[in-house]
């Protein structure tokens, strides 16, 4: 690929990622029926070996969801609340019945997160940092799943499968230091691309001002 073409391609990708894309292919009917205003994020279930993963995740989710137009319950207050009520682990927090959550916190929707992979993996010629989570949004009243996001981001150091990957990795490697702050950046990136995805992302909530189009 010629250099110019390559740069054009990168520019093109940037533009596409910012453009407003029509929502097709994802079934939003359950979501539209529920129309939640507030979202309670439960501290994630951790299936990775990284102990800090749930908390790093929690520091990368509130802003993205709230800026989508929802009231987001304060994640640290909620974590603290569960702990003070005899639920020290996220496994226990995830097992709380939704009726109890309605009674004590009254969220319209509950976001359940499972962390599948988190952190550095060392391979033969390179190391790879991976963040992979499943996000499920459940309407509290009905228990129906109203939105799902398969959320992941990868950063490879030392090598890559394509020219693009090698160069972006070299640059990311300079911007991102290491360890936890590395996975934090990836987690933010992953959440952003899943929740703000033009095709399958979370629809706008009530705090996003609605543009009223002039009637002809």
């Amino acid at each position, binding site marked *: 690929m010629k250099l110019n073409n390559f740069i054009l391609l990168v520019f093109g990708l940037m533009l596409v990622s910012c453009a407003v894309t029509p929502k097709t292919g994802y079934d939003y009917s359950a979501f539209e029926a529920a129309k939640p205003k507030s979202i309670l994020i439960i501290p994630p279930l951790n299936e990775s070996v990284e102990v800090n993963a749930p908390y790093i995740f929690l520091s990368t989710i509130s802003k993205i969801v709230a800026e989508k*137009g929802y*009231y987001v319950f304060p994640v640290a207050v909620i974590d603290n609340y569960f702990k003070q009520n005899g639920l020290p682990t996220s496994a226990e927090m995830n097992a709380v019945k939704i009726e109890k959550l309605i009674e004590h916190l009254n969220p319209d929707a509950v976001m359940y997160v499972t962390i599948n992979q988190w952190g550095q993996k060392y391979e033969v010629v390179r190391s790879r940092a991976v963040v992979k989570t499943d996000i499920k949004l459940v309407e509290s009243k009905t228990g129906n799943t109203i939105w799902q996001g398969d959320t992941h981001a990868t950063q490879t150091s030392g090598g890559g499968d394509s020219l693009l990957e090698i160069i972006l990795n070299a640059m990311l490697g300079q911007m991102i230091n290491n360890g936890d702050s590395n996975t934090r950046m990836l987690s933010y990136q992953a959440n952003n691309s899943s929740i703000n995805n033009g095709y399958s992302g979370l629809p706008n909530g009530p705090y996003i001002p609605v543009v009223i189009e002039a009637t002809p």
Partner: protein
Amino acid sequence: MNKIFQVLLMVCVIAGINGCASKPTLYHWGSYEDMLYKMYVKPSKATPLIQIGLITKDIHKANAKQYKVAPGIYAHLGMLYAQIGDAPAAISALKMEKKLFPESTVMIDGLISRAFPGVSLDVEEFDENELISAVSDGQDLEVKNEVE
């Protein structure tokens, strides 16, 4: 050639990031998420006092620019004041969350009535001046912390 390439790419990436980020945000977030990260991963760098200092500074900034304070921030501040034993400031901050975001009513009423039994839950019945002076104290706290 490589240098030009790198610079161009850097420009593309920054343009891309800024292009998306320049969309005005609904709220002022300040250091909230950085603080959450530190609170869990490097707790000594985000003690309740340090956090109170950071949040109150953010609230001042938001008010000065007439931005809305993001959801959850006043509730978090309320939790911190409760942790350092400042009940009046804790109650005011919690009520402020409820006033700004009525979606938090059940949570806030529960938090207040468990931690401070007998306290009125009425959002109109709290002294915003109390909170303002608490917020200013918070800024002092941070200064003291830096000196120590």
